[in-house]
């Protein structure tokens, strides 16, 4: 094809392009074309003069480029470069993994989520999803044994793990600048945080190893408004937990929502994971046989009653809302099959660059019965009691938003959240 093209060109008038190729001695010119040009240069002084100009131009450009010319990389250079590629292939994969974990923790930060008014109705489902992610990426429980590959997790208490925002940069900005009721700022991630494309890439990479399925569809809102407390009770199967005390300025018209029963599953593809572990002598982390390990979360239905919030409000109206909401949901159960969970906890803990205090908190928690709530150091945390049940209050330091969490003896998780400081929200919680 190229020869045909050159032969065709050989019959054309000799232009600068052909002269340049002649000058360069490039094989793009056929022998015939080269001979024709050589003959023409002898016969046509103007053409020879043109070649001289082109040669001078090329020499001048070469001279300009000379400072950018380097010796060809020798074998040692290539070896170093190759080793660095190897290193980057390993460390950047690791960095991706750590970034993903951090992203998941950011997603799980309950107070971050519930600061967004429109998501009140979905808190129960989000909690379940968060637990799946927690199990999949920072698996919990120290009660697992090497002979017991099935584990049921049912939290009966809360525990807070503090994330230092300087070590988790993607939490910065989200937490510091979040305005209660504001529309989530989907396009304004903090500097250094992965872009949506990065996250998509990471998730594609992760999908080789872990698959997620959930009854919470993509873009589908699992919560739904209902007309009354009675309707919410009928849907959830228990009384709606409604507060009797409302802070000053909060409209006393309740709105009811129901988050229906949800399930979420994570399937770990052991056949994909195993070779990687075997390669590095860590095969004992997962069973020697079996194709998959599974994590199944069952999140009972939740009721939500809110005062003062209009979940459909937008813009300034949403920003200026003052309100509270109380969420009640049955304790989720999580079943883990086919994993050496303790081994994975240890692996996660041993990851380089994981903040040591975070690892210490993760290891010290009674993870089997504890719902882990990551919070940032931009929030205050206080333990107490609500009507005899142990509670945890997490507040923004400026008092603009607080959440109180407690679990009653019937294993119902309660969350009271509002645009007020901690003591005020504890008073709301105590009245529920």
């Amino acid at each position, binding site marked *: 094809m*190229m020869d045909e093209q050159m032969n065709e060109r050989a019959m054309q008038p000799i232009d*600068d392009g052909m002269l340049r190729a002649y000058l*360069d001695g490039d094989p793009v010119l056929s022998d015939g074309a080269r001979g024709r040009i050589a003959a023409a240069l002898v016969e046509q002084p103007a053409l020879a003069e043109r070649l001289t100009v082109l040669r001078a131009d090329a020499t001048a450009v070469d001279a300009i480029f000379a400072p950018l010319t380097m010796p*060809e990389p020798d074998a040692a250079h290539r070896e170093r470069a190759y080793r660095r590629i190897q290193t980057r292939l390993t460390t950047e994969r690791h960095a991706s993994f750590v970034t993903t974990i951090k992203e998941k923790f950011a997603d799980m930060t309950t107070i971050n989520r519930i600061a967004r008014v429109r998501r009140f109705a979905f808190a129960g489902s989000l909690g379940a999803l968060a637990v799946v992610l927690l199990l999949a990426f920072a698996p919990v429980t120290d009660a697992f044994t090497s002979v017991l590959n099935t584990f049921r997790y049912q939290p009966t208490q809360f525990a807070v793990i503090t994330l230092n925002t300087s070590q988790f940069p993607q939490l910065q900005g989200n937490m510091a600048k979040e305005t209660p009721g504001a529309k989530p700022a989907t396009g304004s991630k903090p500097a250094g945080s992965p872009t949506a494309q990065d996250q998509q890439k990471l998730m594609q990479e992760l999908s080789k190893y872990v698959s997620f399925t959930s009854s919470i569809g993509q873009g589908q809102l699992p919560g739904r408004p209902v007309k009354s407390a009675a309707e919410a009770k009928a849907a959830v199967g228990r009384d709606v937990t409604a507060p009797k005390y409302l802070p000053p300025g909060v409209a006393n018209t309740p709105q009811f929502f129901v988050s229906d029963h949800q399930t979420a599953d994570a399937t770990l593809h052991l056949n994909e994971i195993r070779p*990687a572990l075997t390669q590095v002598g860590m095969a004992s982390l997962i069973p020697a046989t079996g194709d998959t390990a599974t994590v199944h979360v069952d999140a009972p239905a939740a009721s939500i009653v809110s005062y003062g919030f209009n979940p459909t409000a937008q813009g300034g109206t949403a920003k200026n809302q003052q309100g509270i909401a109380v969420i009640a949901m049955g304790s989720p159960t999580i079943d883990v099959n086919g994993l050496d969970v303790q081994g994975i906890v240890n692996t996660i803990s041993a990851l380089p660059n994981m903040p040591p205090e975070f690892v210490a908190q993760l290891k010290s928690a009674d993870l089997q019965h504890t719902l882990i709530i990551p919070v940032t150091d931009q929030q205050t945390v206080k333990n107490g009691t609500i009507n005899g049940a142990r509670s945890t209050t997490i507040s923004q330091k400026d008092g603009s938003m607080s959440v109180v969490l407690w679990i009653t003896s019937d294993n119902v998780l309660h969350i009271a959240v509002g645009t007020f400081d901690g003591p005020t929200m504890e008073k709301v919680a105590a009245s529920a």
Partner: protein
Amino acid sequence: MGGIVAVAGEGKRGDVQQVAMIERPVAGQLPPFDTVFQRYYHRVFAILTRIVGPDEADDLAQETFLRFHDRPPLRRTDDEDAIGAWLYRVATNLGFNAIRTRKRRTAREERVTRAELPLQRPLDPESEAVRREERALVQSVLVEMPDRARAVLTLRQAGCSYAEIAAAVGIAPGSVGTTLVRAEALFRQRYEAVRSQKAGAGT
């Protein structure tokens, strides 16, 4: 879970298992990663030194091969020209993007790993400063040129054949000479204009 691979691999860099791990994603349709690396690294590095200079060229050459590792071209095993063209195109794009943003250079200067490359250490700080200034001038002219012209010029300066240039840029081999002549003329014109401007500003 991909991170487990990475974490576990950290203690075993450079051994046979690591090499095998590098090759795995490109198995099947393409030559082994090692083969491609050995065959094309010097040319990719040469292209990038002419675009960004030696300080950044190594990083960007690695980035080029990482991209080949992660998202290789969909070509047959024997289509080696296509692999080269793909690598040169990626390298050229990375190089000019790097010049535009300069982020990579800033990051690189902060990285300790630069010390691993004695080849790139200046032997004479004064002459190195002059070279840097010259490089910066060339780069500033190149980055403002039309994409095709600067790619052809850079690839030719890096020693690519007309066929390789044609494949990388996506033009007919017979058009490379003409494009190159025009690119060189434009480059010289702009380079001399900028140089004169700088000289005028300096006096």
